[in-house]
């Protein structure tokens, strides 16, 4: 019982085919032999968490980046996409995650960008075409409005219009719903359906499962740069939404058989009466324009416990870490370190009491890239004895300290004088680790410690985290990699929109419980 439309669609040849496309950035494999087919009349959803490699894939399709291996076929012919202009001429229009409109120009002027430079803009002809197109799609747009004054949804529609005006056959929407209001998302979804009915191919990138199930025809799930699952339109139609979501959750968060980094630690259960080393009570932070803030975060961390914080990136994890470390001031709530309130203390005072924070921004706020490794080890103790005496650097001592830490933490660098910015991500992380664990750490907060690292370094860092917990320190591990949390944590809390939506023990059912909490379903 295959619906007739489905069999028709199956005969449609793919407009774009990716064959074994691989893209590497220094220290990271963003895409690892990805195969993908994009067919007319289909919304092809690319689903995956941050860092799954979605945006890199889009960069290659839109001509901003070139694959390192593999090939891209257009209409069955191998065609390297050389530049954005080339992508447009091949009929590939992209709506990028961050609006690509010139803020000071009007909508009409933005739509006219890209015409030959010697021309006079044909505003009247454009007006006619846009009006016809917008009417047929049931949307209104003011061509004379200045782009910077449009809402994000309107800006996105202008970009979609631009792609359509150029006779695009493939429309790529990169995280287009992430900035939209719920009604804006609905409108975009309806528009996508109308466009594929006209025979357009749409590639829709999102990390929201509901949207994928609601608007998609075909879903490919990306995870850590690899395509781990594809759900065909036939399958899409034949199963119910709940079953579909279950299948996707399994693909996104499920354990993979070939995953060699799965740690097997049996979680510790701590009796309730164990005194907490860190307790956080009703911590709040006002939301800003770009961050969700914190809404009444409470939890307790016991000595030797490894508490994981799961959640889709950008749901307040970084704010939580920064409020705990003192880099940001909470608007309310209490933080007790060994029963001592520390919420009024400065970053340095908290550090001296044993609260340590390893930022995810390793090269930005974590280290000074142009400074030597040896100095980066002491970045938070500059001008303190014994390494500085009366303002004078004790270079011999600093050097010995560095050499010792480098061997202890297996930092692989040409030498202690190498600028830290030249090291790989894994080695920079080790420098940070060595620095933060030195001298009386009691509670260590990790923010995405293995993000972007290769396997060997990932395993080494995870082992180090386990060792820290085994020494009786409290560990808070913020990660967007659920596998990592399930592998090593004792308990896992889930953050969504600045709230802790639940804390579950790392039991055999934790995988599905956390997965469901992460995508906004009750555990």
């Amino acid at each position: 019982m295959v619906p007739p439309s489905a069999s028709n669609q199956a005969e449609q040849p793919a407009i774009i085919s990716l064959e074994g496309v691989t893209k590497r950035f220094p220290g990271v494999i963003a895409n690892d032999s990805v195969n993908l087919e994009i067919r007319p009349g289909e919304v092809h959803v690319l689903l995956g968490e941050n860092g799954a490699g979605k945006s890199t894939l889009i960069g290659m399709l839109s001509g901003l980046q070139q694959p390192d291996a593999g090939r891209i076929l257009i209409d069955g012919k191998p065609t390297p996409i050389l530049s954005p202009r080339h992508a447009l001429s091949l009929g590939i229009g992209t709506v990028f995650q961050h609006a690509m409109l010139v803020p000071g120009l009007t909508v009409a002027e933005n739509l006219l960008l890209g015409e030959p430079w010697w021309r006079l803009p044909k505003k009247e002809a454009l007006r006619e075409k846009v009006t016809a197109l917008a009417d047929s799609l049931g949307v209104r747009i003011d061509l004379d409005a200045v782009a910077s004054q449009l809402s994000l949804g309107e800006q996105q529609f202008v970009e979609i219009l631009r792609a359509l005006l150029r006779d695009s056959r493939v429309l790529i929407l990169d995280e287009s719903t992430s900035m939209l209001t719920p009604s804006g998302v609905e409108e975009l979804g309806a528009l996508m359906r109308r466009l594929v009915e006209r025979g357009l191919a749409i590639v829709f990138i999102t990390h929201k499962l509901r949207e994928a199930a609601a608007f998609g025809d075909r879903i490919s799930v990306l995870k850590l740069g690899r395509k781990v699952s594809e759900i065909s339109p036939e399958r899409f139609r034949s199963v119910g939404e709940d079953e579909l979501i279950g299948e996707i959750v399994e693909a996104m968060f499920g354990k993979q058989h070939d995953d060699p980094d799965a740690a097997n630690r049996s979680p510790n259960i701590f009796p309730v009466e164990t005194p907490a080393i860190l307790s956080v009570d009703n911590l709040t932070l006002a939301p800003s324009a770009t961050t969700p803030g914190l809404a009444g975060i409470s939890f307790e961390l016991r000595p030797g416990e490894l508490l994981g914080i799961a959640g889709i990136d950008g749901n307040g994890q970084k704010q939580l870490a920064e409020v705990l470390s003192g880099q940001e001031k909470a608007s309310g709530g209490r933080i007790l370190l060994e029963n001592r309130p520390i919420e009024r203390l400065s970053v340095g005072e908290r550090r001296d009491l044993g609260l340590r924070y390893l930022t995810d921004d390793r090269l930005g706020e974590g280290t000074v890239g142009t400074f030597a490794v040896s100095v980066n080890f002491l970045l938070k103790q500059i001008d303190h004895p014994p390494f500085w005496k009366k303002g004078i650097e004790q270079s011999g001592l600093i050097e010995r300290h560095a050499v010792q830490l480098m061997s202890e933490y297996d930092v692989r660098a040409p030498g202690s004088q190498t600028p830290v910015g030249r090291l790989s991500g894994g080695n920079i992380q080790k420098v940070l680790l060595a620095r933060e664990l030195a001298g009386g750490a009691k509670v260590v907060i990790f923010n995405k410690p293995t993000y972007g690292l290769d396997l060997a370094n990932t395993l080494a860092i995870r082992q180090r985290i386990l060792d820290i917990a085994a020494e009786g320190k409290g560990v808070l591990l913020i990660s967007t990699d659920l596998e990592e949390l399930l592998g090593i944590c004792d308990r896992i809390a889930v953050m969504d929109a600045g709230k802790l939506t639940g804390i579950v023990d790392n039991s055999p059912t934790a995988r599905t419980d956390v997965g469901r909490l992460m995508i906004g379903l009750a555990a």
Partner: protein
Amino acid sequence: MSDLFSDVFLGALFFGAVTAAIPLLLAGLGEQMSEKAGVLNIGIEGMMIAGAYAGFLGAYYSESLWLGFATGAFGGIVVASIMVLLCVRFGLNQIVIGIGLTLGFEGLTALLHHFQFSRTYPRLPAADVTVVPYLSDIPILGPALFKHHLVVYLAVLLVFVLAFVYRRMQLGLNLQAAGDKPAALDVAGVDVVRTRAFAVFTTGALAGLGGAYLANIGAGIFVPFITNGAGFLGIVLAMLARGRPFWVLCGALLFGVCLSLTTALQVAGINIPTDVIQMIPFLAVMAMLIMFGRKSSLPAALGIPYERGAR
């Protein structure tokens, strides 16, 4: 005081103002185009001095002022091509390269001039003037404004041309996009490097032309360091004019009056120390910056090299 505001004094003042304003106008218009496209062109002073020297040589050897203007513009383009290569193509720091070009070409032209002419300063014959019929008969202002070399009228015409380009032409949109959000221009299928290169080459040509006018018509001779900050005044004008060519014209005329005043006041024999009089144009710059400088809104991507797909 009646002497001071005599017809002769005012005539000389305004005539001198136009002559002094033209190099500033050309530099300001050129700088404006670079800045619109996102390139802060500090090297414009170097482009002017190169244009002044090349223009002077062209006119001196060919005995044609027009050929002098052509070599002057070419001299500016040569310097601009270094800026295009280093700053636009390879994305090096625009301020460092700009300062380097200015200092380098000030020194180089002085050196070459010394080798070539030693300590003599050959003078070019006075320029032919094009008299605009009827308008030049207006008392005082007529002869002051409408008895100039043809290139002066062309420079003023250029203001209108550029205003048209910026407001009405596709090129104007491209230039503004290159300065405001180059990534958007790139994904719209227009090469950002080419757009910016075009702007910087045009700046070079205009600055070179301005330099040639300064040497060949304004002074009639070339002396080392003759531009004396005219390029930097052009940068000030471009920043104050906020993308509008007419404002560059107004500003250039205002500075022109101040510069002309220094000469006119000395000629009129006013009993003020020369040093004070020569401060007037620069006091005017400071006054204008204090009055309008705060409001100047510069392109968002000004001074930032564009790299495709940078993350």
